[in-house]
């Protein structure tokens, strides 16, 4: 048992007229140490047999106080911390943060920097989706995709490593642009990766997309309607799978996204299978974006003129990007000093996780696992 004391799960369940067979109504504690909760999520499940009557998420086991740290670090010093939130998509976090501060300072990164950012962020999106696919499939019981996706994700991490020296928490971008010029052969590597990974995506799909068991396990499981999704603030592939064609890369383009031609894949039913299809389609769209970006990457500086000491003017800004998990927003209040007066992160996983309860009611325990997987949460981001 964890030291946290809120065991009295406040589950607003319909009260029964009679005291019921107590062994049939079960409160199960899933996590924080559980193979399927993707980290240290703890879900208290109230079950009737195997049917879920209600859930309560207990989070915060990975709370590191990122927002408090931000108030005590300079803008530059805080940059690496954002990588530790969604550690699966560290590049996206860094992009959002750098762009938010740039916007606050009213500077703009040079075109070449923007292109490098797009390439790396999209590569990171593919890596994030691959990791999601592997773990999600493992949750549903298919072991093999995990190894396939990790094999291919490795190629992305190799590119990251060659570019900035780090594989996971990359800290690839700086406020005002990029720290590093692309290494010699970067474009070739990326192009090689593109031609390498496209058949691999087909490989995953061969294993899963028409697999009967996969269909049975994911179709009509964890359905969330578009209206519910919007009301619950769900974003990213989860929202798009419900049929809302909304992607910040199109709706409010940032970086260089307005220059690329890509589509927003959407689903129709809002079930786990649609979310799977949407993410697979997103991987392909990302490949398209990367291809365009790497072919059209302009020459020029990679760093805007920013002062050594970053001191944004007094004011506040909200900037958000389309992270692999959804809308990742930074709300920064500056008092004109070198440190943010207040920095708020709008974490997509945190808000998406809230939809879990709506999605799993009336389903079975096995579906809870599938739905947690399909939400694609990273506890580092949920707890911050």
């Amino acid at each position, binding site marked *: 048992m964890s030291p946290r004391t809120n065991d009295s799960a406040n589950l607003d369940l319909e009260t029964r007229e009679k005291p019921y*067979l*107590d*062994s*049939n109504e079960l409160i199960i504690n899933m996590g924080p140490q559980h193979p399927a909760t993707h980290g240290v999520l703890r879900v208290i499940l109230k079950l009737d047999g195997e049917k879920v009557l209600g859930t309560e998420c207990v989070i915060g086991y990975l709370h590191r106080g990122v927002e408090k740290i931000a108030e005590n670090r300079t803008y530059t010093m805080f940059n690496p911390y954002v990588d530790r939130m969604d550690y699966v998509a560290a590049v996206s976090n860094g992009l959002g943060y750098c762009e938010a501060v740039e916007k606050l300072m009213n500077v703009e990164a040079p075109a070449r920097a923007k292109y490098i950012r797009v390439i790396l962020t999209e590569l990171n999106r593919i890596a994030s989706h691959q990791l999601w696919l592997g773990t999600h499939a493992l949750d549903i019981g298919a072991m093999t995709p995990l190894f396939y996706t990790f094999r291919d994700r490795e190629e992305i991490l190799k590119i990251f490593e060659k570019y900035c020296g780090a594989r996971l928490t990359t800290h690839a971008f700086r406020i005002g642009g990029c720290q590093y010029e692309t290494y010699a052969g970067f474009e070739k590597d990326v192009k090689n990766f593109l031609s390498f990974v496209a058949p691999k995506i087909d490989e995953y799909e061969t294993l899963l997309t028409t697999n009967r068991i996969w269909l049975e396990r994911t179709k009509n499981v964890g359905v969330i309607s578009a209206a519910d999704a919007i009301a619950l603030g769900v974003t990213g592939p989860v929202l798009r799978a419900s049929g809302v064609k909304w992607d910040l890369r199109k709706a409010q383009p940032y970086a260089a996204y307005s220059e690329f031609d890509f589509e927003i894949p959407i689903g129709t039913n809002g079930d786990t299978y649609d979310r799977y299809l949407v993410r697979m389609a997103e991987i392909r769209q990302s490949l398209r974006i990367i291809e365009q970006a790497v072919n059209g990457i302009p020459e020029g500086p990679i760093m805007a003129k920013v002062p050594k000491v970053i001191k944004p003017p007094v004011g506040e800004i909200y900037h958000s990007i389309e992270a692999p998990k959804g809308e990742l927003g930074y709300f920064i209040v500056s008092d004109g000093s070198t440190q943010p007066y207040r920095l708020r992160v709008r974490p997509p996983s945190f808000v998406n996780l809230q939809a879990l309860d709506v999605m799993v009611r009336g389903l079975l325990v096995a579906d809870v696992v599938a739905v947690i997987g399909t939400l694609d949460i990273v506890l580092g981001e949920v707890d911050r």
Partner: protein
Amino acid sequence: MNPGMNSAFNSGMAPVATPFFFYMLSGLAIVGGLLVITRRNAVHSALALIVTLLAVAGLYLMLYAPFVAGVQIIVYAGGIMVLFLFVIMLVNIERSSKERRFNRMWPVGLAAACALMALFVSAFVKGRALFPDRMMSLPESSNTQQIATMLYGEAGRMGQYTFAFEIASLLLLVAILGAVIMTKKKI
């Protein structure tokens, strides 16, 4: 005793019904039965009952009734006892382990059972001569076929127990329906 029967027995299979196996199996059966009625924990009782059932199945084998032994294992040990364990788990309430094991009328019940036992003892002592010393042999290898013939008949002729067998299947159907209706929350 008919001598012809004896010779049939002797010329048949090798004797499996050695006294050692008989005493071992019947000892297991009786000890298991004792444990069934004395254990506080219902799961322990169930396990003891399984031991008894398997021992009785062994006794059936010794009595050249392999089909009945197979049915005993497959139906009792594999089916009914799993059902019992299932139900014990469903109604597993903690307090039952702290309460009295026996009901308030247990002396009366025990007395009645003892009277029954006395009856049995007297019957066996008095009627000892009724039972032949040697048992007849049954053809083991065609046991299943013969039972099947009695149950279903053969070649266009109805068996002796076909009707009873149909009734038994009806009974089972009714039991299934009854159990489903009884246990379902909402019908």
